[in-house]
């Protein structure tokens, strides 16, 4: 049993990289090489669906970095995801060229429809892939930087911070619904034709995008792991557990928060950018507060404070959602709501966290410093009475 645990958790990272690599080989193989008539053939639709899950997993990873390790619960990460998506969407719109319904070589259809005469200034440059990719990272990063430096410097913490992140994404939702913002209003950006000269509908393109998403997830994981296993990662956990204590030790807490917040926003932006060509549309509903909170539950289910757990949670919950909505679409909200309640009441550490914490408790010791995995589940609150006392003291 212990060996199995060791195999499973002893080196989660290696396991994850192996799984991602395997998926990058197996899925395209079963889609492109295995004939469609064979039962083990993976449909192109399924490739797109898996690709979408991988993007969600990257979003969950980004969220876990700030929530699991630094205690910053963002209810607005969907905003960074959507901004990255819009940046990619703008590139894809420019690539449509004269193939749009109105045949305008420069203006996207919705602008022609609105009788716009020329491209707004902020649409310039998006016909270059490299510029668009820069924006995918820069725009969410910049928003996160401005928002974060204001919030962290004024020491907005805990639920207050969560609520204003929700307000942030809500404000963006309202803004992007407006036609005169120049992002296609209600309908968003869609009808994409090609990416880097490849037809977005073609099977090979789909597989390339899928593999690119896996690569991004692996890269994102590597970055997050590098952060959380460094001394900086320990500082983040210290901030999460006792912010003031960390401050009195001489750490500039707000700078640490800002750093990890911006990194997280950039990762979310990349996730959004890879998501858009695979689902074929980006519209303001991605900014809806409900979408952001749904992402939080992936992390909670998988196990916050465990990077692999966040990825696992995103895949599990979304897989479950696809399966469940397949036959009971109208009852999905019951299931999702129950997941929220169940996971907070009975699985506060998430799936991975629960397994790991049991291991810690048994051994009562951790591996020596440096060898420990990138895992930092919070110890659970001892009992209800203590929780109440804490509340009374607060």
């Amino acid at each position, binding site marked *: 049993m212990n060996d199995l645990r060791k195999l499973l958790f002893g080196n989660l990272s290696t396991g994850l990289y192996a799984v991602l690599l395997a998926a990058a080989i197996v899925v395209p193989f079963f889609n492109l090489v295995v004939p469609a008539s064979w039962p083990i053939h993976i449909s192109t639709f399924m490739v797109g669906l898996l690709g979408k899950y991988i993007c969600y997993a990257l979003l969950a990873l980004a969220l876990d970095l700030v929530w699991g390790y630094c205690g910053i619960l963002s*209810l607005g990460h969907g905003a960074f995801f959507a901004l990255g998506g819009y940046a990619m969407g703008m590139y894809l719109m420019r690539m449509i060229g004269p193939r749009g319904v109105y045949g305008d070589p420069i203006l996207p259809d919705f602008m022609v429809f609105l009788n716009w005469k020329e491209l707004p200034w902020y649409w310039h440059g998006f016909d270059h892939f490299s510029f668009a990719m820069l924006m995918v990272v820069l725009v969410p990063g910049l928003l996160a930087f401005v928002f974060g430096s204001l*919030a962290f410097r004024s020491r907005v913490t805990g639920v207050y911070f969560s609520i204003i992140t929700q307000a942030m994404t809500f404000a963006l939702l309202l803004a992007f619904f407006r036609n005169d913002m120049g992002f296609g209003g209600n309908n968003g950006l869609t009808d994409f034709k090609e990416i880097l000269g490849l037809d977005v509908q073609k099977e090979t393109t789909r597989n390339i995008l899928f593999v690119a998403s896996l690569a991004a997830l692996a890269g994102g994981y590597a970055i997050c792991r590098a952060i959380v296993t460094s001394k900086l990662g320990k500082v983040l956990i210290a901030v999460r557990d006792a912010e003031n204590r960390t401050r009195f030790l001489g750490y500039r807490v707000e700078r640490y928060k800002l750093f990890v917040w911006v990194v997280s926003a950039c990762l979310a932006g990349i996730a959004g950018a890879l998501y858009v060509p695979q689902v074929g549309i980006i519209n303001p509903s991605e900014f809806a507060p409900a979408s952001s909170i749904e992402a939080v539950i992936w992390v909670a289910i998988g196990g916050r404070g465990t990077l692999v757990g966040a990825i696992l949670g995103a895949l599990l919950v979304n897989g479950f959602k696809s399966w469940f909505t397949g036959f009971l679409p109208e009852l999905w909200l019951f299931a999702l709501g*129950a997941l929220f309640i169940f996971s907070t009441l009975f699985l506060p550490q998430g799936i991975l966290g629960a397994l790991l914490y049991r291991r810690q408790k048994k051994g009562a010791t951790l591996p020596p410093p440096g060898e420990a995995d990138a895992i930092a589940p919070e110890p659970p609150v001892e009992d209800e009475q203590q929780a109440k006392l804490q509340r009374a003291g607060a």
Partner: protein
Amino acid sequence: MKVSLSKIRIAKANAASGLLVALLAFSVFVSTPSARADTVYTPEPDNAATAPQAQPTSLPALLSELVEADYDRKAEIANLLAESGNPRALAIIEALADGLLFSRADGTVVLQPQENVQVYVDPLTAAPVSGVTDADLSKIEVNNRLRRSLRSLSSRLSLTSPDASVRRAAAADAFASHDEESLPAIETALAKEPEAGIRKVLGEARASILLQSETSSEADKLAAIETLRERGDQDALSLLIGAATTDDKAVVDAANKAVASVQSSLAYWNQLQNIYYGLSLGSVLLLAAIGLAITFGVMGVINMAHGEMIMLGAYTTFVVQQLVATYAPGAMSWALPISVPAAFIVAGGAGVLIERSIIRFLYGRPLETLLATWGVSLVLQQAVRSVFGPTNKPVSAPAWMSGSFDVGHLSITFSRLTIIIFAMGVLFALMAFLKYTHFGLQMRAVTQNRKMASAMGVRTNWVDALTFGLGSGVAGIAGVALSQIDNVSPNLGQSYIIDSFMVVVFGGVGNLWGTLVGAMTLGVANKFLEPFAGAVVGKILVLVFIILFIQRRPRGLFALKGRSVEA
């Protein structure tokens, strides 16, 4: 309603005292709905000979003569009808002008009260006539000249109608059309009109005609300008602007001065109207947020299902209305008052249930509470969608909530006013409850010092549950009011949750006065931003403002500064 209440229009009144009078009038009106009968007056007949009973036989004869008469004779007959003083004369003349008066093959005349509706009545008695077919009818023809004179005849008749509401409408029409031909009729009516309010409108109608007329004297025009300046609304303004482009220098000067004065007073009223709309929006926000001020502000529970408590209240209103409509249709006007306690019980009960089954396990873990209650909100939304369907449910407003009245140039609708008063009522009732009841005392004791309260024998568990129930119940009551102005759908709560949090956080957590000031400030700010930023951008600006504000004062407007180090 609108007409019957314009008697409390207070022109040129001091705004504050005007509002006071209006509120008093409103409260009288609400408490005694039966006292809303129109003031009926019977104008003195022109002369005894035209009294209805004086020529009882000649009217049917005149009518049948109408069928064969030429246009000149038709005009004469119409005049005779008008002078007869018969109460049906106005309807007959209007029908003639509209081409809704027909002769039948047997020579009798019928009147079609509504165009395109195949119902016919006897012109003089208004009794329905059956068995009329299209082939049977031929229209009594009129030409343009006749139609014009019929129109002025009808407006003259309505200006002297015994029904005050008809006269008032006619006077307003006369002002709007400022047709020079109706000037004599207006002047006749002006001389006889007993009601000051209508006389004023008639005077304004006269002024509007005189001002535009090429034949009126300079003195008349100057007087007209003064009258219109006093009226001071948008219509008067455009007339005055028109007058400012004429040739007569004295008139132009006076008109320009009047334009400036009207514009500044309109701007002032516009601000007042904005403030009123803002207060109205603010009280909606207040209603939505009061419950949260208890659950979040006092208990510190992040209740994301708060919006769904509002929704439950709104659906309770719908169910109560359905039940009343089915079992006691006569008591429909009571449906809304009954809904208030019903919604409190339903939402409050749901709140207690949620607290006992979920939230009590999560005290001290605010972020988890947030997630769990979000889950609850999803379940409740879906439950309501499964039971009631995804479409909007109709919740009718009681009659006394429709309509409006004017205070100066301020238009006050009863629905908005009711919500403002209701929101204040709920807030003060809650404050009184917390301050003067035993439970309120226990609640405050538990929030201030849980251990000590427990040691004093307060059952803190139950106080927690009931406090949460109270907050949820108040949210349910808010749902009753919001069902009147918003769509009752499963998504109702979602649209209020962020606003509610913003209000509570902005106002300062744990302070009901803060919630009041926060809600009103945000409401008014929203309405003032709307005209030049648009509704959506206005809302975004307010959100951005709050975000910045929270960052400057993380504990809100009215928070107390603490001294303890929470390490």
